[in-house]
């Protein structure tokens, strides 16, 4: 670690992982409610569980991105963070607001929460992923402002590397597009149209810039490959991500009201969306192959490669599977969407956060060459357990989706099976999904325990020798 202020990333990473555990637990509850409708339903109805599951995901990823930025921007800028105390303060504000919101979801009925938080003054609640009370949304904006200000000032006074510039455009975009969450017109079509300006422009737009920047940073560090090469790749990847992804938003406009030309625009541009993800895979393998030195933190390299591959599979392949309008006509809003969502979020965003944690956390804990061998071995097991079980979950949901479409969507009205009858038929597949979810949780537990595996005596000795 080059700068003391990079350490403010630590609480962000730790809290992100705590929330991650919560996300998975609520996912398992929902998985069980899919097959056994009575499970916990009086205490945590499905809609509450889902809200907690998705909101925890968004919040822990934001914590991860913030931690990643606080860690890498000072190092890239070659200067201390503009204001470490502001970073610490916004951590506590954000953490408190996040916990309070989640408790609000769990402890009072949602309609009551809306009343308590005066939702009627500026109604923004009750839309998918944007369920947060308006006051929380304002809090998120304030925290983002403080964060972008802090990062921006650091970049301004220091070195303006490509990684910094791509990251900061991503972060500014993240903050700016979140403002659309305050726009909630009475007209549902307009509401949906601009709702996607938050959701799509986040996950298939500016978040990809953050993903690219963090991946490039870790790859430079673990491979020692020439910055010039990596920066050129980074520019091309994020350029393609924006060029395909911005108008690619059209694939969400097929069936919610906007005109017919979106069927063409959305199909063509979103068919290009796998390209930047594939280039990320090419880039990651190329850079690792041409590495200049062997970094002791081998598992961080594995995470980086894994992120590229799983993001390509989840966002690229599973996205392409149902993005063309004639196909999407049948798949829209089916379990196939859920399959794509799970693998894309895990592969691209959950994994990039774990990549930077895997690289940065050992350094912040005084292990510049990575964790001890035993810890890395356990982390490697966790990596495979999580990746494979998530692939399994995705496959199960893909089968469920295909089946659902065959029973419920393809036949003409009258012959088609109803929604609930179809879901009953899918129960065996949902059981498989739930079991694989448990495997995922075990992988996560292994991952967390790897933080507590210490060094052997000989490793301690050699570390001390190196320190002397």
């Amino acid at each position, binding site marked *: 670690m080059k700068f003391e202020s990079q350490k403010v990333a630590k609480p962000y990473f730790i809290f992100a992982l705590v929330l991650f555990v919560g996300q998975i637990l609520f996912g398992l509850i929902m998985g069980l409610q899919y097959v056994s409708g009575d499970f916990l339903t009086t205490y945590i109805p499905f809609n509450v569980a*889902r809200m907690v599951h998705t909101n925890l995901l968004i919040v822990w990823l934001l914590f991860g991105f913030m931690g990643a930025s606080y860690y890498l921007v000072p190092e890239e800028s070659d200067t201390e963070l503009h204001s470490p105390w502001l970073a610490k303060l916004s951590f506590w504000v954000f953490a408190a607001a996040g916990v309070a919101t989640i408790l609000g979801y769990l402890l009072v009925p949602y309609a009551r929460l809306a009343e308590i938080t005066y939702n009627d003054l500026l109604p923004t609640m009750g839309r998918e992923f944007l369920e947060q009370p308006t006051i929380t949304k304002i809090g998120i904006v304030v925290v983002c402002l403080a964060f972008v200000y802090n990062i921006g000032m650091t970049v301004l006074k220091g070195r303006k590397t*490509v990684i910094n510039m791509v990251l900061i455009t991503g972060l500014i975009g993240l903050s700016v597009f979140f403002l659309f969450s305050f726009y909630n017109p009475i007209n549902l079509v*307009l509401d949906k149209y601009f709702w996607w300006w938050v959701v799509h422009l986040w996950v298939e737009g500016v978040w990809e810039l953050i993903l690219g920047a963090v991946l490039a940073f870790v790859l430079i560090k673990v491979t020692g490959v020439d910055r010039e090469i990596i920066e050129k790749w980074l520019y091309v990847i994020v350029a393609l991500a924006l060029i395909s992804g911005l108008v690619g938003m059209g694939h969400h406009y097929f069936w919610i009201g906007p005109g017919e030309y979106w069927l063409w625009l959305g199909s063509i541009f979103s068919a290009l969306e796998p390209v930047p993800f594939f280039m990320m895979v090419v880039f990651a393998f190329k850079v690792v192959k041409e590495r200049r030195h062997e970094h002791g933190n081998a598992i961080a390299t594995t995470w980086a490669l894994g992120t590229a591959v799983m993001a390509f599979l989840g966002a690229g392949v599973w996205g392409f599977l149902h993005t063309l309008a004639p196909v999407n006509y049948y798949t829209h809003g089916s379990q196939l969407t859920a399959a794509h969502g799970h693998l894309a979020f895990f592969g691209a965003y959950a994994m990039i956060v774990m990549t930077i944690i895997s690289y940065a956390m050992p350094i912040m804990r005084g292990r510049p060459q990575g964790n001890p061998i035993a810890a890395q071995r356990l982390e490697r097991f966790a990596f495979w357990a999580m990746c494979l079980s998530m692939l399994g979950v995705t496959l199960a949901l893909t089968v469920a989706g295909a089946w659902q479409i065959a029973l419920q969507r393809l036949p003409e009205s009258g012959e088609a099976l109803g929604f609930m009858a179809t879901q009953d038929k899918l129960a065996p597949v949902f059981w498989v999904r739930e079991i694989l979810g448990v495997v995922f949780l075990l992988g996560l537990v292994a991952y967390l325990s790897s933080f507590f595996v210490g060094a052997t005596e000989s490793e301690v000795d050699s570390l001390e020798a190196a320190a002397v």
Partner: protein
Amino acid sequence: MADRFTKGMARNVYYGGGVFVFLLLVGLTFDTMLELPKRDHRENITQSVANGKHLWEKNNCVGCHSLMGEGAYFAPELANVFDRRGGGDEQVFKGFLGAWMAMQPMSVPDRRKMPQFNLTDKEVEELADFLIWTSRINDNDWPPNIEG
């Protein structure tokens, strides 16, 4: 990557391409905003439809159901529930919705449970109006059949 493709060129593609495509998106959005009034029949949004949308949001209906294919996939699609359960008759649909909301949660073991939201008759009427209005948006003929 060949050397004749320099980092400077890559940077220009990123900033130039990004800005260009974003402007394209803004232009398309502008055009869509002009076209939408013909498709979303906004002239039929009454106070009751507006109240219905707030009820939809305040009770987090999208946490289980989908509306025009967006939302959770735990419970049936509701953008066409008027066609499915009302058969084109608004009074029939309102009667159905009121009875349906009143009997939740159903005591069928293991069936997915819908909570009891304790809506008043007026609220049920408003929610119904919102769903009826939604079912009449021009959405390029989605879903493929009445089951949604």
